Structure formats: structure tokens, C-alpha cells
């Protein structure tokens, strides 16, 4: 299994191609089996991953365009490992919970393609390969939103595509410039990220390159004020689309910051802490308020995603292990929780064909199991300790406190504003009297839905209570990255700001 990463990336692709042959009626089962195998493969990867090593493992290298330094170069470290596992898991669960009836085969195949691109993004170590998967992921998502979405689906899908596409093209220019600089210095073309790490840019270059990459990543995250595609995309996407979009696609942006921006431009990153923190805080508070104003249940969760992504961004720019590890953990947690929440909205949407909260009320009486699962996910979303949502948020905030107490307090309001909109949602939909007579006939979760939620609930609690197996490998890699950044930083401010833990311990 030395080609495990390639298998992970391309297995869904091949299976997806073969999926065209499968009969329509069996397509769903086929999709679930493939996703399950893929998930098991990712678990195998995890099992065989050396958690004590911070290095990149399972490296595969094969030249594609030799003269231009483009190589098929993949590898996995603690930062990417769990994102891959989460991707395969959420794909599997999304597939299990899928209720789409029309064109099911196309859907299954599309999701498998999407899975390939998502896994590819997290495993790529060559900028062009990264870009390749990054862009390619837009296509299946476009199709999913556009083909199975709500009334505004075409607008939403095109907006999603064009917005992200524009940003990433600017990022591409940035990548090309880095490659050019690499060529200028070493005389060799290379797009390998690990090679790029070795480059030291002066401050001016760092700043502009950081901005170029920022545009690409920020739109994907999405950071304020680039976030407006998200409510449309979520609002219109079918459940599975929202699940994958929220759980995985958004993480690509934040992952990009960790993978590219920080190690490549440490000084610019330190320079940008304040602006990014301010944007993050705007994201946290502003979008939380907007979420509170929503009438559509799904839009609340869509905006809440933006708010949570604000926390993740903040953590990444804490420049210490707590913040960054916390961010990565929060990516996982947000992936699982928001994915579950979107699935939950999908459950009620399937039954009533509405997502407007005022149409509900008193659901807890009619659908107690549903209310229970929703309640658990809600608590995880607002960051209740012993659920997965707390660990990341706590680490991010504690990490950023080192940078700026005042900003941390502002960002910390997320625990308040987050509770406000989530509880309001829960109250409007689940509590109170049953206002709509038709809702009395609603069925509680069926066994298929329960099966798809149980693993999520289990993970939410497991990683809330015992996050160590996940946190340790992440932390190892993050610490290695931080000490590398500290080493590499050229300005004294950056050297001061970046907390490589080894030195922090010595200082004590």
C-alpha cells in the first residue's frame, strides 16, 4: 500500500467512471459502498500514520511537466491527515443520508468526482496539482447546486463558481510568481510547496504574494466581505451539496492559509495579523447577527458557517501552536457539526418542503429523536465543553489571547452571539406550540437517518471528550511548522510574534 495516497485520490474517480455502468436503482448503494471503501482506506492511512512524526509521510513523486517543474507530488502530514479522513467520512455520511430521487446516478458519480478533488486538494504538495484539484472541485459542486438545487439554483451555482474561480486565478498568478522567483534563485523550475518553503522573500514581495494567495483563499473560506456567495449556495444547494460544501469545501480555504501563506510568507502573515483579525471579528459578530435575522433555517446555518470560519481564521493567525492546532481542530469540528446541521435541515425539508422557521414550531413534541440530535449538534455548534465544538474554539481563543486580549474578547463574543442565533432557531422551530396542523403528522427520524446521524453524534462526543488522538498529530506538525516559520522569518517582529513552542518552554 505504498501508493495509498494515489489510491485515495483516484479510487473515487475510477469508481465514479465505472459508476456510469451501474443501474439506476442500485446507484445509491454503489455510491455508499465506494464511499465506505474510501473511508476505510483513509482510516487505514490514519492507522499507519506515524503520529509522533511531524514530517510529511507517504510521499509520492512523479514528474508531469519536467521542464516546468510540475510534478505529481503528494504527501500527508498531521495537518492534512484528518481533513482527508473527515472528507471521506462526510462523503460517506452524506451519501447514506441522501434522499434525492431524481438522477440519482448522476448525483452519485458527481459526488465521487467531488470526493477525488477534495482529497486531492488536501494531499497535494505541488502547487499546480493543488490548484488543479482546487479548481476542479468547483465543477461537480456547480452541477450539484445547479441540478438539484432550489429555485435560484442557477444563479447560486454560477455565483459560487465565478466568485471562487476569479479569486483562484489571482492566486494562480501568485503561484506563478513564486515559481518564477524560485527559478530565478535556483535556476530550476519547481512548483513543489516544500521547495517553495525554502524561499525567503523580502517584505514587499511577501506582502503582495500574501495578498494574491489571500484573495484565492479568502473567497473560498469565505471571509467578509467575500462571503455573499455562501448563503446563496447553501440556500439553494440540495442537502448533500450543503453538507459537503460546509464540511469540506470551505476548509480548503483555511487549509490553504496553513499550507501556503503561513510557512511561505511568515513576515507578511505577521504583518497581516491585525487586518485579518479584524475581518475575522467582523465575520464572527456581523454574520452571527445576520444569521439571527434569517427566517430560513438553512440560511441561519449557512451564516453560522461564516461566523465559525471567522474563528478558524483567527486561530490560524494566532501564530502559536494553540491557535493553529485549535483552528485545524475547529475545521474538523465545524465540518462535522455544520455537516450534521445541514443534514438535519435536510431531514425536515424532505418532509415538509420548507425551511422557513415560522412554518415549524413545536417540532420537539412531534419529532423527539430529531430534536435530540439537533439539540446535540446545536450544543456542539455553540461550543459546549465535552462536545467537539468546544475544543477548537477554546484553543483558538486561548491562542489568540496571546496576540491580543482585546480582540480575543471581541472574538469571544462568538460564544454569546452564536448561542443567540442557534437558540433562537431551536426555539422557533422546536419549542412552543405546534402552530401548523400539518406538522402533526410528521414522522420522526427513520432508521436510515438514524444510522447516518449516530456516527456523527458519536464523533461529536468522542472528540469532545477525548480529542487527543487527533490533536497530537496535528500539534506535532503545527509545532514543526511554527519553528520553521520562526527560523525563516526575517523581521524581528515576526520572530517575536511566532511562538515556536520549544522556545516558549525554554523561556519558562
Amino acid at each position, binding site marked *: 500500500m505504498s501508493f495509498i495516497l494515489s489510491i485515495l485520490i483516484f479510487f473515487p474517480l475510477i469508481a465514479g467512471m465505472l459508476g456510469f455502468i451501474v443501474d439506476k436503482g442500485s446507484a445509491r448503494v454503489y455510491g455508499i459502498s465506494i464511499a465506505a471503501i474510501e473511508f476505510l482506506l483513509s482510516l487505514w492511512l490514519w492507522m499507519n500514520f506515524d503520529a509522533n512524526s511531524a514530517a510529511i509521510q507517504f510521499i509520492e513523486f512523479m514528474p508531469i511537466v519536467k521542464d516546468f517543474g510540475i510534478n505529481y507530488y503528494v504527501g500527508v502530514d498531521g495537518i492534512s491527515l484528518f481533513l482527508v479522513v473527515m472528507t471521506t467520512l462526510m462523503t460517506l455520511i452524506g451519501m447514506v443520508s441522501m434522499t434525492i430521487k431524481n438522477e440519482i446516478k448522476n448525483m452519485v458519480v458527481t459526488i465521487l468526482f467531488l470526493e477525488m478533488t477534495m482529497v486531492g486538494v488536501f494531499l497535494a504538495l505541488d502547487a499546480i496539482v493543488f490548484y488543479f484539484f482546487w479548481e476542479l472541485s468547483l*465543477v461537480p459542486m*456547480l452541477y450539484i447546486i445547479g441540478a438539484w438545487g432550489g429555485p435560484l439554483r442557477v444563479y447560486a451555482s454560477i455565483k459560487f463558481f465565478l466568485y471562487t*474561480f*476569479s479569486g483562484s*486565478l*489571482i492566486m494562480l498568478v501568485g503561484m*506563478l*510568481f513564486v515559481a518564477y522567483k524560485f*527559478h530565478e534563485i535556483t535556476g530550476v523550475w519547481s512548483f513543489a510547496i516544500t521547495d517553495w518553503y525554502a524561499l525567503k522573500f523580502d517584505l514587499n514581495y511577501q506582502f503582495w504574494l500574501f495578498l494574491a494567495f489571500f484573495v484565492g483563499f479568502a473567497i473560498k473560506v469565505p471571509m467578509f466581505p467575500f462571503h455573499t456567495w455562501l448563503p446563496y449556495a447553501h440556500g439553494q444547494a440540495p442537502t448533500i451539496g450543503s453538507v459537503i460544501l460546509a464540511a469540506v469545501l470551505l476548509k480548503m480555504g483555511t487549509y490553504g492559509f496553513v499550507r501556503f501563506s503561513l510557512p511561505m510568507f511568515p513576515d507578511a502573515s505577521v504583518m497581516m495579523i491585525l487586518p485579518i483579525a479584524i475581518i475575522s471579528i467582523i465575520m464572527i459578530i456581523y454574520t452571527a447577527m445576520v444569521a439571527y435575522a434569517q427566517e430560513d433555517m438553512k440560511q441561519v446555518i449557512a451564516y453560522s458557517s461564516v461566523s465559525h470560519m471567522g474563528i478558524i481564521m483567527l486561530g490560524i493567525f494566532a501564530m502559536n501552536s494553540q491557535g493553529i492546532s485549535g483552528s485545524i481542530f475547529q475545521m474538523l469540528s465545524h465540518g462535522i457539526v455544520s455537516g450534521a446541521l445541514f443534514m438535519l435541515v435536510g431531514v425536515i425539508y424532505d418532509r415538509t418542503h420548507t425551511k422557513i422557521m415560522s412554518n415549524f414550531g413545536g417540532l420537539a413534541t412531534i419529532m423527539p429523536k430529531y430534536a435530540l440530535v439537533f439539540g446535540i449538534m446545536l450544543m456542539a455548534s455553540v461550543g459546549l465543553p465535552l462536545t467537539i465544538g468546544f475544543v477548537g474554539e477554546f484553543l483558538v481563543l486561548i491562542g489568540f489571547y496571546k496576540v491580543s486580549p482585546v480582540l480575543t474578547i471581541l472574538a469571544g463574543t462568538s460564544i454569546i452571539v452564536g448561542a443567540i442565533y442557534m437558540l433562537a432557531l431551536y426555539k422557533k422551530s422546536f419549542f412552543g406550540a405546534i402552530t401548523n396542523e400539518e406538522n402533526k403528522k410528521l414522522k420522526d427520524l427513520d432508521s436510515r437517518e438514524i444510522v447516518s446521524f449516530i456516527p456523527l453524534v458519536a464523533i461529536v462526543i468522542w472528540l469532545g471528550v477525548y480529542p487527543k488522538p487527533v490533536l497530537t498529530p496535528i500539534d506535532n506538525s503545527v509545532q514543526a511548522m511554527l519553528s520553521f516559520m520562526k527560523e525563516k522569518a526575517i523581521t524581528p517582529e515576526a520572530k517575536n510574534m511566532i511562538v515556536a513552542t520549544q522556545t516558549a518552554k525554554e523561556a519558562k
Partner: protein
Amino acid sequence: MVTPIQVTVQELNLPLLAPMLIAIAGGLGILVIDLFKSNLDKSLYVMLSMIILFADLLAVAGITPNRGFFDLMLVDGVSIVSQFLVIVASMLFIPLALTSKRFHEFSYPEFFALFLFMVAGFQFMVSTDNLILIFVGIETASLALYTLIAMHNRSNSFEAAIKYFTMGALAAGFYAMGSAVIYATTGSIELWQIKEALSISSSTGSMVLAVTGGAVLLLVAFAFKLSLFPFHTWAPDVYEGASAPLAGYMSIVPKVAAFAVALRIFNIYIDLGVESVRTIILVLAVVTMTLANMMALVQEDVKRMLAYSSISHAGFVMAALALGTTKGNAGVFIYYALFMFTNLGAFTMLWISRHKKLMYSDRYDHPYEKFAGLIKIMPMGAVVMALFMLSLAGVPPFSVFWGKLFIMSAAVDAGYIKLAIIMGLNSAIAAYYYLKLVVYMFLKEPVFNTDTIYYNISKPLMVIVGIALVATVTSVFFFDVLLTYIYALVSASGF
């Protein structure tokens, strides 16, 4: 008394002429066959043309870069690359005559003869650095092309041919005048001599105006050929009026040839550091890609949209040419090599769906509505077309992406970061109208729920689409080879 001139055959280096001669002889042969026996089926001529083109290709492959025929012919790397592109594109084009429905032009054997003459014209055009032969080559090819367009025989195609012809004639006037100015300033009409002359005298004050003025007049002529703003106005109408395959062909072959010549001419100025020429070209390129993109956004017809998109792509490539680096120059041909398959594939898809009557619109053959819900009517067709569209939009790993990547990289390397960003943003704008078609095909309901879209399909057409598709999708595997080969040839030619 005139002294006799001694020439050895060796000196003439006749193999350089072989490819063009093959094409011309082939064309004449077809005419002769028609003389002896008329009423032969078009498939015969298609196959004959294929064979002739293949022989042509082999002849090109056998050439070692050299000068020949009193140094008039210049077959260097650029020439070989462009000839390859011209011939390969022609070979992809010719089988498109084998449609299941009859169209007027293919009932003429002369169509194929003219076509082969045209190919020879393009080959001459790129295989010399003498302004006369360039001019004669351009006109040979163009006159044949005008006829081919008009032979589609409906009012739109006449209109297209006349528009193209008239503007072409005007461009010819500019070319002639520009050449005269250059001749006046250097006393030569051979580009290598012009370059030497200019490198000595361009610095002297009084001549600068004439030197750049001549360049600008030539630029007008080539801007017309390359459809750069504001000389592009013919392109959308001509593409709309011409048959789909010919439109696709026009978006590749004449442009490749014109780019090869433009490269020879304007590289002189760029190399000599005449910044005004470079700036003008850059501005034209940027305006072209941006404006054409914007206009493509609002089109109702796919073919017309593709016309604007071709204009935009040409602007993109023109910018690479203006960089003046080997990478940029190689990028021109790499881009077209990759763009060729995708674009021809897309136009072939239009050709497959061509109806004789206008069913979906009063004016257009291929309005967007025609493709609505294509996924339900011909799923494979929709997927293939979508792949072409994504490739055109520059989504990796499809072929045009690599071209874009390379050219943007060239721009970045040359220090034109802003240009690269403009290119990027333009690609994003362009994505909209490509996506629009994808959206129509995948996300809308069909207008008529029939399988009439298949109207014009035939096996050869499917094969061509297949080839285009494979080349588009697997470009990631051959891009390396292509890059190495073209780069080596272009840099060996001194560009």
C-alpha cells in the same frame, strides 16, 4: 549583356518547398480528377485531401530548419511549428465534410482544391521572412478562404464573405503601405536585413517616426488578421455566417499563421526596444481580451459566443507575443496547439447539431436554447461539450488551462504581473459565458423533447470529436512533450 547566374540545386534546398508543393499538386490533382470524371462523391475528395495533407505533414516532419531558394524561404522552428499546427488542424477539419446531411460547399470538388491551396498559402506565409512572399501567401490563403466561406451558399455566408473580403482588402492596403514605409526606412524587404538595418539606424532621430509608423501600419494589417480590437469587427459576423467547421478552422489556422508572421515582424521592434510598439500591442491585446469577453457575455448564439471567445483568446496570446521573451513566443504556439483541439472540438459539436432550418431562433443556428437540457437528449454529447467549455474556461487539467498557465507564467517572468492578473480576471469573466452553455445543457429543460439535435451526426464527425476530446482531456500527459518540443524549436529560431 546579362551575366548568367549559376545556381546549384543543392543551394536551392528544394525540400523546403516540398510540403507546399505537395499541397498545391494535390489541389491540382483534384481539379484534374474532376475534369476527367465528375459526379464523384465527396468522400473520395475528403480521403484524397487527408492523404495529401498527411504527405504534407510528413514532408514538414522531414525538414531540417534551413534557408533556401535564394534565401527567400526561411524554414525555421517557428515555421515548422506553425506548419504542423496548420496541417494538423486542417486534417481535423477536412473530415467534417462527411456529414450525414448535404451542404452546398462539399458538393464542389473545387472546395477541396481551394482548401489545399489555402493550406499551401498559409505554409508559404510562415516559411519566409520576405515581405513579398508573406503578402502573396496571405492573399493566396485569404482569397481561397473568402471563397470557401461564400460557398456555404446562404445569405449569411455571402454577407460574411463580403465583410471579410472587404476588410481584408483594406488590411492588404495597410500591409502594402506598411511594407513600403519599412522599405523606405531600411531599403530592404527581408526581415533579417530590416532588423540589422533598424538596429543601426533606429536610434537616429528623424527616422523613428517612419520606423514606428511602418510598424503601426503593419500592425493594423495583422491586427485585422488576428482580430484585435478595433479591427476585430469582422470576426463575429464571419464566424456566424460561415459554417461551423470553417468558423472553428478560422479561429485557429489563419491566426496561427498570422501569429507566426507577426512574431517575425514585431519581435524585431520589441527586441530593439521600441517600447511604443510593445505598449501598443499590449494595450490592444488587453483591450481585445477584455472587450471581447464582455461582448461574449451577452451573446444569444453559441457560435457567435465562441467567435468572441476566439477573439478574446487571440488577445490573450497577443499579449504573450508582446512580452518578447522566448517563453512568451513559445507560449503563442503552445497555446494554440492546446486551444486547437478544444476549439475545433467545440465547433464540431456545433456542426453535429446543425440543422438546415432555423428551428430555435429567427436568426441563429445555434442559440443557447437549442442546447437546453442536452443532458437529457444526448448525454454523452452534453458531457463532451461541457468538457470543451470547461477547457476553454481554463479549468485544469484540460488543455487550455496549460496554455493559460504557460502564458501567464511567461507574463509573470517578464515582470508583467498586472498583465497576468488581467489575464486571470478575464479568464474569470470568460468562465461565465462558457458556464452559461453548461448551465443550459445540464440545468435546463429541453425546448423540444426530441432527439433532433443529432441531426448532422456521422461517424467521421464522432471520430473527430473523440480525437479532440482525448487531446483535451489527456493534455496533462503530453503537455510536457509539447512544451519541450515547441520551446526548443522556437528558441532555436532565435525568438
